[in-house]
């Protein structure tokens, strides 16, 4: 009798414990304070050029994946170094950049771009955090100012347009 009770109870516990979980039933987070999408195109041009080659953030498995003319293309009919980065690719890159740390991104944008180094994107880009591709945009460089300016909501693209000068060569990932 005791044995049957024991094994019966154990079976109940095991069956209950191994049941598959329901689909996600947690809360959802909405990025209320999103950085601007309309000015992202000029920003991502720099990211695509400096980070998006196929050996680096153009690689399919990367957490931060970038699409564009310099590397991976979104449409199967497009090729690297073919037509310009498309609006769909800009949107995909936007989702990739904003979606990497959405909560922190929202906080940074809400604060008007203060302390952007809270973002892994900025730390790795600046080289203050270990990054296989090294320092891509040094602090204070045009590329750095371009991305930081985007986070503040600025619509002045001058830094972005001047990101590629002789002092900032193409950075290839190993």
């Amino acid at each position, binding site marked *: 009798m005791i044995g049957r009770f024991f094994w019966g109870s*154990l079976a109940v*516990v*095991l069956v*209950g*414990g*191994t*049941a*598959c*979980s329901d*689909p*996600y*039933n*947690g*809360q*959802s*987070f*909405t*990025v*209320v304070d*999103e950085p601007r999408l309309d000015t992202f195109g000029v920003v991502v041009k720099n990211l695509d050029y400096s980070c998006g080659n196929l050996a680096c953030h153009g*690689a*399919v*498995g*990367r*957490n*931060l*994946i970038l*699409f564009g003319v310099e590397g991976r293309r979104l449409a199967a009919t497009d090729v690297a170094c073919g037509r310009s980065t498309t609006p769909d690719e800009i*949107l*995909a*890159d936007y*989702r*990739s950049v*904003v*979606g*990497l*740390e*959405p*909560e922190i991104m929202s906080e940074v944008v809400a604060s008007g771009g203060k302390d952007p180094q809270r973002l*892994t994107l900025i*730390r790795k880009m600046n080289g*203050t*955090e*270990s990054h296989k591709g090294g320092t891509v945009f040094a602090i204070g460089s045009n590329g750095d100012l371009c991305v930081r300016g985007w986070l503040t909501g600025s619509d002045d693209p001058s830094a972005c347009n001047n990101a590629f000068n002789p002092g900032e060569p193409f950075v290839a990932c190993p």
Partner: protein
Amino acid sequence: MQLIRACSVGAAAFGCAALVIGVAVPLAHAADAPPAPDTPGKTVSPVVAKASLDTTAYTDTDHVSVVTPVVSAEVGDREGAWKVHGQYLVDVISAASVDIVSTASQRWHEVRQAGNLGAGYKPKDFGADVSAAISREPDYHSIAGGGNLVWDFDDKNGTALLGYSYDHDTIGRTGTPFSVYSHALAVHTLAGGITLTLNRAAVLALVSDVIIESGDQSKPYRYIPMFSPDVAPTIAKGASISVVNAERLPDRPLENLPDSRDRYSLTARFGYRFAHGTLRADERLYTDTWRLHATTTELRYYANLSRRLMVWPLVRVHAQNGVYFWSRAYVSQFGSGGFELPTYRTGDRELGPLFSITGGLGGSFGIGPASDPSLLSIRAQADYVGTEFLDDLYVKSRGSVLGTLGLDGVFQ
């Protein structure tokens, strides 16, 4: 890579808090064997020292391997009124698991060092002990301290225990100073237990642990693939890396776990001494505020085959459901209403539904003097763990082997 914490109280196997406070069925283990009978006319040292050297090796079908040499020592008096003990270990980890490969990263190697020191004093029925532990790896620092109170009652037929420990962890990323990137995790553990000698052969121990965790324990390397609402249901259990990468959305957010977690466990351990061996049966029930519920059942039998040889086969069964925010394929959406993602998301398989069975065999062979062979013994243990992941990406199962080879000595 933060694979191993100083004292894992996770869902797998048995929480260590129960073990830390030392609720143990008296077993005929070599290291715990009673001292040799006094020889008439010979002075016996009041101090006994024990030392052990171990090397543990782990490998699994997910291409993770760990080698851990351990050295331990303990000095105490023969009556058990006081003791001091310490341990030092090094984990050498090599991993190319599917989680690493799926992010286009390469195999990594890492070394972790950990040590602990402790002391106990129990002159009569009341006793206390304290301990401190530290663990260092490039991206994870942990420091812990705690103490226990012990009270023997009913002519030592019962023992009550109350313990508390605090663990402070700093979680970072390899190659990045903690000052640039890190987050903290604080863990308070309260343990209470009672051990009752039921009769000359049977002992029952009950231990309850309450573990309060606060802080961000999300893994800083773990990014979670997102899928569109219409694609997510088509992602099968064990979907391959190529399928996930082909179907996922561009956004792959960092893992995000709730900042607090309260864990509760109840462990019952029953030991029964037969003429030539000891049976030990454990059952641990676990639940937490992330709604993970688990059961772990273990049976092992210590068989004294001769004065020198003891073996202990064991079998362990573990089952758990997933945390409430578990999902094999998380959904994110981007539209006029904004960018919407799941608040909590994880890819940690230990937080998902799983089932595991462990089979193992251990043995100890006394090579000490004929008067007491257990004064020096060789110990070996090999366990195989088969785990079925019931609702995961990339893998459906994992097989792992854990082997230990050790040398135990008692000096008096």
